[in-house]
């Protein structure tokens, strides 16, 4: 893709283009992960990058997630800006110790004297008919940890720009990629000036109720809003984009207008990011709420075998059901 052009890209291609741009413009950027080299990653996100930038910058690693993140920390201490791929959501846990006890805390431990510009890419979420450990949404487990930032794009343009901003950040960023939307295509303008990384965006304006989501659930909410519109309900859809920090100001602004909030994510509802949003928004604008904040998400159950995932995942009907319940108050 030529610099500065506008093009319709899939999310996979947009992340690839963003990584390519960073490899071109900053020789301290290195890509690391399992199968990211010749194969281009199991989802082809890093396709062609090792061919063009060499094995020193696009590094196939041993099959050891803690080792990948632990060595990325060391590279960051040496002045590099590693972009690490964890192959699937459910495989991040061997690295969880390094992420939580080291990566997140290093800047504070050093009283600010070292920085940890590490991006950890995690393809996450279900809906692709996969086997166990390939469909999970662990974002709350990372958002709970001070020192980390967590983002999740829902479209190709955000995928491109949020990756640029994540790499530019001097803080560790967990970048959750909505794998079931990987091949959704939308316009990407590579010469646009992006908005702030951690700001929510109004995906669709409305007046009766706010649907807040991020990553793969934004499309579901958009579809739900369109369906509700046919019944005369005006639904505002907010793409949160960032899970840590969460743009509570942006949500509050929307809820003050609509008076109702439903938050949707694939991750289990219990202790999920929706719980945090519900608590904060209730505290911030209690008197503007016409109904309790409702949540739609996964159950307190292991992610089910794929033949059951359509029942487990929030779909159009479950979102509309919550919309109806909120509007009934």
């Amino acid at each position: 893709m030529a610099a500065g052009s506008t093009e319709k890209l899939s999310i996979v291609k947009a992340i690839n283009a963003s990584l390519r741009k960073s490899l071109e413009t900053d020789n301290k950027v290195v890509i690391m992960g399992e199968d990211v080299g010749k194969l281009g990653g199991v989802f082809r996100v890093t396709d062609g990058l090792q061919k063009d930038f060499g094995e020193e910058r696009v590094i196939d690693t041993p099959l050891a997630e803690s080792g990948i993140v632990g060595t990325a920390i060391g590279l960051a201490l040496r002045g590099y800006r590693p972009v690490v791929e964890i192959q699937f959501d459910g495989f991040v846990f061997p690295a969880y110790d390094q992420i939580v006890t080291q990566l997140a805390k290093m800047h504070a431990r050093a009283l600010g004297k070292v920085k940890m510009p590490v991006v950890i890419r995690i393809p996450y979420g279900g809906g692709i008919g996969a086997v166990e450990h390939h469909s999970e949404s662990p974002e709350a487990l990372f958002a709970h940890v001070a020192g980390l930032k967590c983002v999740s794009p829902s479209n190709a343009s955000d995928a491109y720009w949020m990756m640029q901003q994540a790499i530019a950040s001097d803080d560790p960023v967990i970048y959750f990629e909505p794998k079931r939307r990987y091949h959704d295509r939308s316009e990407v303008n590579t010469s646009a000036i992006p908005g702030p990384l951690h700001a929510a965006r109004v995906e669709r304006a409305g007046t009766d109720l706010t649907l807040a989501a991020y990553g793969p659930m934004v499309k579901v909410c958009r579809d739900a809003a369109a369906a509700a519109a046919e019944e005369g309900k005006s639904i505002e859809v907010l793409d949160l984009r960032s899970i840590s920090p969460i743009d509570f100001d942006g949500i509050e602004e929307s809820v003050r207008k609509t008076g109702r909030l439903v938050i949707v994510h694939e991750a289990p509802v219990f202790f999920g990011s929706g719980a945090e949003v519900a608590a904060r928004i209730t505290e911030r604008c209690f008197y503007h709420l016409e109904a309790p904040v409702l949540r739609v998400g996964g159950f307190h159950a292991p992610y089910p075998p794929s033949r059951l995932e359509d029942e487990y995942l929030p779909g159009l009907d479950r979102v509309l059901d919550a919309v109806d319940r909120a509007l009934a108050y």
Partner: protein
Amino acid sequence: MTVDSTAARKPRRSSSTKRTRAKQPTADQTQLVQLLTPEGERVEHPDYSIDLTPEELRGLYRDMVLTRRFDAEATTLQRQGELGLWASLLGQEAAQIGSGRALRDDDYVFPTYREHGVAWCRDVDPTNLLGMFRGVNNGGWDPNSNNFHLYTIVIGSQTLHATGYAMGVAKDGADSAVIAYFGDGASSQGDVAEAFTFSAVYNAPVVFFCQNNQWAISEPTERQTRVPLYQRAQGYGFPGVRVDGNDVLACLAVTRAALERARSGQGPMLVEAYTYRMGAHTTSDDPTRYRADEERELWEAKDPILRLRTYLTREEFADEEFFTALEQESDALAKRVRDAVRSMPDPDHMAIFENIYADGHALVDEERAQFAAYQASFAEEGH
């Protein structure tokens, strides 16, 4: 039980026996690289040699004595309530000073939380080490000002950081080396195994320096391994060597060789410094519950400082004047440390919110403002 640890439990030999042994080393003894015997006698090793001036020898002695004095003062400060905790290095001075003095300025150190002697070699002010044990910070020194990374408490994690840093050194085309400290307990951690794997496959210039001090809190090395730890390296495709960890000369010679090997592009090496934790794991520990006094007495006979003093005296490399002056220097250091700790201020309460993120975070900003307002409310009420 390894061959060497069995040997370590044998009683001290008489002077004549010892000389015989030095001349006719057995296979077991060459396995443990030693250049200065517990009796203070210089011996040669076929693979590792060292030639130091009397001044350099006195320097190593001074380093060990001052480190031990600092360490003892810190233990005292903990007992008096000035520190919350202290992890003593007593008995491990030779392993730390020997390896620490093998380093070049441009080399980089990744310590555990017990590397006070290595910190000394890197010119990290000893009082900087005490902040985390007093509870005023979690480390806080600038790792890059002395190429001495922050103390790492989670066991073994830093071996991966060292490996990644070494991968970066190689990428930069620099000829520096990196050294990762860890212990016999850490050798069971997955991160250490992964560090061995990564360093081997990328041929990273890192030296893994394992201080096998025989005890991981209450668990003996036999609970961590069925083979001598240095032999683990072979399975990863790089050399491992066991050195007498109470012999500062051997630790220096072996670490120098390992670092030089790394600098010249030959990749990682494992050094197992066979030593003994003379004190408790930390000031919170009670070793009388799990180990016998007799074992400690056996290791007292191998004391790293005593054997070098014996050698310096016998060879007339140091006189009483030197030892007396060093004693005074030790006391002065202890006093400086003591004064520094006792006058170390508690951090401002708003420090809770500092340095969490380099680029800021909206929630931290919000909570900082709320907490500041909450604190200010007391002032307004005249408390």
